[in-house]
């Protein structure tokens, strides 16, 4: 299964220099629109707009939390080397999947649902880049396993979606 840059999101909520941790949304699933309703958020992936569903985010987050929780830097490093920790840019130390239902059960009102993360760069210069504004967000790398697709001209709110299993379809 090939790994690729799936999506890029950005909302850095806080940089805590003392802890050396940057906190924000690692994945955004839904965003509140002008009418106040949480709608699926589609990013601008080069292969077309993509939304990671809350269900997909929760499952991926659970697996990722039990892995090495690798933090990358600008996707510059060789994925295999990063995965094996031969290159250590940092660690995703905190993860909280914040879905619409979780927020509701906790009595919280959220502007966007997704995966809230705290990353701890191993190099202080990376933290300084966040403070200076040079670095602005997070981007995930991984592999799609299963999902739906539709032509760009189709209505995203319609049922005109085709189920795709990326492994079975030979994407691997």
């Amino acid at each position, binding site marked *: 299964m090939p790994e690729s840059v799936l999506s*890029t999101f*950005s909302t*850095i909520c806080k940089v805590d220099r003392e802890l050396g941790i940057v906190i924000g949304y690692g994945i955004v699933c839904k965003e509140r629109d002008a009418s106040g309703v949480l709608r*699926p958020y589609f990013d601008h*992936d080069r292969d077309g707009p993509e939304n990671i569903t809350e269900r997909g985010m929760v499952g991926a987050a659970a697996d990722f939390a039990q892995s090495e929780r690798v933090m990358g830097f600008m*996707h510059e490093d060789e994925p295999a080397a990063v*995965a094996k920790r031969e290159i250590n840019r940092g660690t995703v130390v905190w993860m909280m999947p914040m879905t619409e239902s979780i927020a509701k059960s906790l009595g919280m009102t959220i502007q966007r649902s997704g995966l809230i993360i705290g990353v701890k760069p191993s190099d202080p210069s990376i933290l300084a880049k966040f403070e200076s504004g040079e670095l*602005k967000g997070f981007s995930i790398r991984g592999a799609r396993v299963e999902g739906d*697709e539709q*032509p760009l001209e189709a209505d995203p709110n319609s049922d005109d979606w085709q189920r795709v299993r990326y492994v079975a379809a030979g994407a691997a």
Partner: protein
Amino acid sequence: MAKTRKRTDVLKLASISVVDSPAQDNAVATMIVKRRLTADEVAKAAEKLDAEDAGDGGRDEASEGEAPLTEADQKALHSHYAQMAAQHAQDASYHAASGRLDQSAASTKLAQQAHRSAKRVLAMPIAKRDFTQDQRDAAAKTGAAMPDGSFPIANSGDLHNAMRAIGRANDPEAVKAHIRSRAKALGLESELSDAFKKSNDAGDGATHGDDAMPLTEAQVIELQKKNVELEKSLARAQRLAEMTDAEKDYAKTLLESERESFVNAESTARVAAVRKAREADSVVYTCKATGKEFRKSSDPDAVAMAKALDESNERTAKAELESENVAFAKRAADLPNLPGTVDEKVVLLKTVEGRMKPDAKQADRNAQILKAASQALAPAFQRAGTTGGADLSKAGGFAVDKVAELAKDYAKTHSVTIEVAKSRVLKTPEGQRLYKEYEDEKRAALAS
């Protein structure tokens, strides 16, 4: 491949990268950089404020320059210092809770300074409203200002500003009369301060005091409430910084509500509470191996482990002692002629080898055994008699005495010991002769 819209609900994450160029068009990166002061920065700031306090009686940034503030600036400045005080108070609590008492004290001092500054801002004069020259001229024509356009008074704020600015008037009495006149015209006489109600009073007293504050009552109440909250926050930070380690440990065992009242209590009350808690929580076990005390509230498993450790150590020590005693008992068997039991001989042997320090009774018994052994050996050292019956004790006495006398002189003359002197004297011809004389006399005595 044609682009499609995707909705991914099963995926596998490999890594999450930090990036500089997010793809989300409308993402507004909100960055709140919250940074605590380093210990050095805190120390330097505290030092600077100390120096300022010592140098000019507490003059601080808030009062630098005598330029009066606008009402908006006053509120903003007060808010600035109030926030600064709250932040330092929070830092003080944080440091105190982390055991960094020096930093906590420094932050507390900074919080106090900021709090003083916030209070001072409230007492600062407010700038007069800006009037253009045309406005001043127009006001002068209508009588709203002095003939030269100064002290324009069109509303309550202007009235208060004018009262505060009386010190700058060239003709204070004329200005006071103008102020009273305008207050009356505007129906604001009730807002005149005492100094302006009487025509012959000096006006400089009006440059200070709450009556000169152009804030509304609600604003003043709000600011005062903030001050009260700040004072509470500061007091709490100070109490946290003053707490001892024992008090902090005790506080950790309390519920949230109990902890708050404990922190807010006076020092003597906190000490008493900790003492009472310690008394109620008596020591149930002291580990012999580590010396650690376990109290009623201690983890039962930890107490059991400590007891098990001590019991294990005792068993090991006992086994080693028994093994050692067996070895010494075997050696005691090799001393059949010594009086005493095997155990007594074991004690004696171990004492001799420094393996144990005998108690008084054992020491007495050791002495008795040795004394008895000595007595048993005494006959072996008794003088049974001399060969031939001759008394050799006095043979050669003259020669011996003479050698001793010569050695004494030699030792004195040559500053050597008597033994060295004797050996040297015996090598001289005289010494040789005396030694021969001694030998001859001894042989004669044996032969007689």
